[in-house]
């Protein structure tokens, strides 16, 4: 694994905006960054990322199969009791998942380590599936990267196939915070792939979803919402006014309710408990577990529910040397052992390994000067050399 500095395409901003990627720069700061790229060998991709991604996903599904009917597991994950039947029923009905993104620590010197699983509302899918692929093609043409360069990326085709399987000819609604440029762009891309799969689609802001007492969830045209992709997390749905309507409503959600088990950092100690010593896992414990003392005074402290690095703290010898502020942590924290953080040109990369229909199929790389990845961490393309 290497970080290679390279020239930018002169027209990359025009190219981005022509395909709807208008969040390439956020608050005046670069988000898409092609002043460099991460290079991997094919062996690293296949043996250290693709293979372990499938294995970690399988372990996670095994965890879900235990958790959905276990009050102790669900209680430790702090999932509200009122939604336990919703979660269990969605699992036993085998409700389909479209995609997810594992965040991995990997620097080429040892096995990849799971940092967390963005199982419910992962973003950066457009950048991963489309824009870095466009970069690869144009960078080869312009001799910015070697002619034989490849990329771990079949996300786009697999999303289309995934929609055919998940959609089954139904009308698809897509919802989220449509006023946010990044989320709107992600939703637009997923709508595009769903349309290419032959699904009729309707976009609706999360706040515009309605409830009709005799019918269920509806859109602004009073149309029943039968199947809906949401870029809005389950833990927020459960707290919202309409949360109580979820139980018993005929609507099918992507991602399904059982994914609420995995989009919770509590799975990190649960996975360690189920698969102790696994090479792709880091030791982890709930903060109130006496076994957490095994980590000593140096560890990473993460809220059960948090997003984009908020309220994460790196503790060394009992002192937080890096921490992100935020509004999370009311449900409690977990502690995870440090992964070796090797900087590349003073940047800390985190790998996003994508699964579509439980198949590993793509890679994204985010980097930051800060060892805690956040919303403004830059997205760099990758190549297989």
């Amino acid at each position, binding site marked *: 694994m290497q970080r290679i500095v390279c020239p930018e395409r002169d027209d990359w901003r025009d190219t981005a905006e022509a395909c709807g990627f208008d969040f390439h720069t956020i608050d005046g700061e670069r988000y898409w960054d092609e002043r460099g790229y991460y290079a991997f060998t094919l062996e690293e991709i296949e043996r250290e990322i693709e293979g372990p991604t499938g294995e970690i996903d399988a372990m996670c599904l095994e965890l879900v199969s235990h958790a959905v009917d276990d009050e102790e597991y669900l209680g430790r994950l702090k999932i509200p009791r009122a939604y336990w039947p919703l979660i269990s029923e969605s699992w036993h009905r085998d409700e389909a998942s479209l995609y997810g993104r594992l965040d991995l620590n990997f620097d080429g010197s040892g096995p990849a380590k799971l940092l967390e699983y963005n199982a419910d509302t992962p973003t950066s899918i457009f950048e991963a599936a489309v824009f870095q692929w466009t970069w690869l093609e144009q960078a080869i043409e312009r001799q910015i990267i070697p002619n034989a360069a490849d990329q771990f990326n079949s996300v786009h085709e697999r999303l289309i196939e995934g929609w055919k399987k998940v959609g089954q000819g139904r009308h698809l609604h897509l919802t989220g915070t449509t006023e946010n440029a990044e989320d709107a762009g992600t939703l637009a891309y997923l709508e595009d792939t769903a349309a290419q799969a032959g699904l009729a689609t309707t976009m609706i802001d999360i706040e515009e979803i309605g409830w009709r007492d005799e019918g269920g969830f509806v859109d*602004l045209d009073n149309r029943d919402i039968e199947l809906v992709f949401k870029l809005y997390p389950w833990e927020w749905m459960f707290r919202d006014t309409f949360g109580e309507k979820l139980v018993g409503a005929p609507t099918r959600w992507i991602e399904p309710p059982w994914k609420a088990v995995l989009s919770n950092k509590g799975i990190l100690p649960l996975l360690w408990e189920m698969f102790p010593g696994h090479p792709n896992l880091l030791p982890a414990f709930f903060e109130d577990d006496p076994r957490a003392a095994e980590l000593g005074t140096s560890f990473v402290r993460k809220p059960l529910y948090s997003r984009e690095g908020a309220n994460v703290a790196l503790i060394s010898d009992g002192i937080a040397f890096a921490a992100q502020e935020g*509004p999370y942590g009311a449900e409690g924290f977990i502690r995870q052992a440090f992964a070796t953080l090797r900087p590349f040109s003073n940047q800390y990369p985190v790998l996003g390994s994508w699964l579509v229909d439980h198949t590993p199929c793509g890679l994204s790389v985010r980097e930051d000067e800060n060892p805690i990845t956040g919303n403004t961490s830059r997205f760099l393309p990758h190549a297989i050399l």
Partner: protein
Amino acid sequence: MKRSRRVVLTMMGTAAVGAVSMGFVGKRDCGPGLTAVPGPDGKPFCRAVHGGFGGTLHHFHGHAHGGHAHGGG
């Protein structure tokens, strides 16, 4: 070979945002789960109650519009 063969976008870059003007709504009792909204002929009709999702986003991130308040992660 690990890379995609072909990436085609058919809709992106052409998204349009529609705005709905609520206008003046005459009084009408719609019952539970429904609210009165202006119809195409200006007369109120009953429509489902909206706005039941999204509250937690604002709880955690205030009422920022177009900023970092978003559901993706």
